């Protein structure tokens, strides 16, 4: 049942992505209205599917499949929030395809997730996982916007204006959005690290074990911390920040993927 709902949500997102991409070429307002409705209904279906699975599992997301699916859900929720706040449907042309590339592998590998041991099933785990996934989603949106920024910047610098030039928001707007998302993501990431080490301590009696997921998360945390510091102190912004944001997001994906086999290994 939940799988059917998820598949339906996938199709809604897919159609929305097509509409948003067509909107880049043909600026028909109706396309954005339809796409927005599709994403919203996709989110509802997706949320119900995820909720059904979670209640069955005692509130804890399991396996990489569900993790990816939750990241996609949160990513699109952030997008809808941004679109409602700033009325920038053009973000959809980048963020819905990004969400799909996260979600589709998630759907394909879902199921077959081994149940977690009772040892880690405690109130802190769902909180840790939810915050981690929300942080990853925030960085995912920041990366999508970084791609847009780089495309726009290249046209601005090269003075060759393509179709996107007229469609994309201003560089300043995208850079500012990046800053806010990275700040939010950084805070979430910090909480993830702290709660994660508590969990590790509870399961294995050690706060820090240098496992790949821990290392990747720590590096990502340092990278984003450095970006924010450089932004505040020496006015780093624009292209460099965009590249680093994408790199940091890549690290977080590594951290996400490596965190699952590890969790199943918990005795």
């Amino acid at each position, binding site marked *: 049942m939940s799988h059917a709902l998820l598949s339906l949500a996938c199709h809604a997102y897919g159609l929305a992505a097509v509409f948003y991409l067509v909107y880049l070429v043909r600026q028909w307002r109706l396309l954005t209205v339809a796409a927005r409705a599709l994403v919203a209904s996709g989110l509802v279906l997706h949320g119900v599917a995820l909720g059904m699975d979670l209640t069955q599992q005692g509130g804890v997301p399991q396996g990489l499949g569900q993790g990816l699916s939750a990241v996609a859900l949160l990513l699109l929720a952030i997008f809808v929030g941004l679109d409602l706040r700033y009325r920038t449907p053009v973000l959809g042309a980048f963020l819905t395809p990004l969400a799909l590339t996260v979600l589709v592998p998630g759907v394909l590998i879902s199921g077959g997730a081994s149940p977690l041991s009772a040892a880690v099933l405690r109130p802190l785990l769902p909180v840790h996982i939810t915050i981690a996934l929300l942080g990853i989603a925030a960085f995912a949106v920041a990366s999508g916007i970084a791609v847009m920024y780089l495309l726009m910047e290249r046209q601005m610098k090269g003075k060759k204006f393509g179709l996107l030039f007229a469609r994309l928001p*201003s560089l300043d707007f995208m850079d500012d959005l990046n800053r806010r998302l990275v700040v939010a993501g950084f805070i979430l990431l910090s909480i993830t690290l702290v709660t994660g080490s508590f969990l590790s301590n509870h399961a294995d009696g050690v706060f820090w074990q240098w496992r790949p997921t821990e290392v990747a998360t720590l590096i990502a945390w340092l990278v984003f911390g450095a970006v924010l510091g450089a932004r505040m102190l020496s006015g780093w912004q624009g*292209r460099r920040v965009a590249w680093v944001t994408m790199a940091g997001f890549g690290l977080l994906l590594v951290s996400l993927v490596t965190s699952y086999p590890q969790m199943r290994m918990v005795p």
Partner: protein
Amino acid sequence: MSAEFFCIGLSHKTAPVGVREKLAVPDEQQVEVLKRLESTGEVMVVSTCNRMELFGASADERAREAVLEAIASLGGAEAVRHVYEHHGDAALVHLFRVAASLDSMVVGEPQILGQVKEAFELAHKTGTVKGELIRACQAAFSSAKRVRAETGVGRAATSMASAAVELAAKVFGQLAQRPVLLVGAGEMSELVARHLLTAGATQIAITNRTQAHAQQLAELVGATTRPWESLAEHLVWADLVVCSVATPQPLFTRAGVGTALKGRKHRPLFMVDLAVPRAVEPTVAQLSNVYSYDVDDIQRVVAENAAARAAEAAKAEVIVTEEVARFLRARAVREGVPVLAQLRQRAEQIVRSEVEKTLTHMGDELSDKQKKSIEAMAHAIVNKLLHQPTAKLRALSTEDDKALAGAAAELFGLPLGETAGEEH
């Protein structure tokens, strides 16, 4: 004789700013002008920083002289030399074009419609616009709305100044709180300043080798000035720099801009160089977080936009022409020939219903060709019958002889005094 529309005034197309600024008079003074001209007919004053025009409708031959006198009293004999005039339908077309922003310095800029509306309100409050001008203005406003809704006029920049501002908006988004530095106080700087103001810029500073000129322009556009000597420092302050001063040596070198970038903590800097020879060294464009455009770059943008824009402006002109024609049609019906129009309409109705009746009776017995002949015959009979009355009625609308029109209405059983159902 019925009232004729006129437009007498001057604008950015005919008068330099020195003349225009003398005519930029406050509301109270405009009211005085309106009252002085009231006796010659309807009148309103449209006064913006780019134009000062008196629109009116009058049957009085003295109206023209009175308006010219009024302009002379405000702006002196110098002003009158720059005056242009439109009379009759041409004045109407001009009113519609002004309201639709087709006559603006920045074609398609949205403020002019509001300014014309304010001018209309002021004249309305003063009581110097009555039937004719009220109807003309209302038609002009709705035609302007149509232009805005149905065309993309004003959407893409067609001048170097507007293209520069448009590009800046692509970097900075809102220009409201962005510090802008205009280097030079010439015509180009004025144009850029106007575009910036339209785009919402609030912090504009002007620097010029001759401080007095900078001061003059600053006052005109509501900007501040900065000393020419400390140009390098301004580069730390400003996010957008527009140069229109030709100098033998570049004003902004790569090294200089590089130093300024450190001072501004690498905040993006957008530089537009409209001067020839160039005031910004070409290599400045290689610095990161600097977007530097020279005349050729900007001109290329303008050329790309121009094609698209020309099509939109042409569409807008068509709309204006249509709307003027519609207004004139309605006016003709309203004014001179209601009886005639009703008579024609009635005849048309009779022909249509009788032909229909006959054709349904005869049904399939007739070929298409025969049906057409019957229709043509019905039209011909009615037209022949009405030819003489039509000609008489048409002639009388200029002779102001309402008695015959009344008789015709009586004879043909038409409701007198109402318009023939045309739009208003």
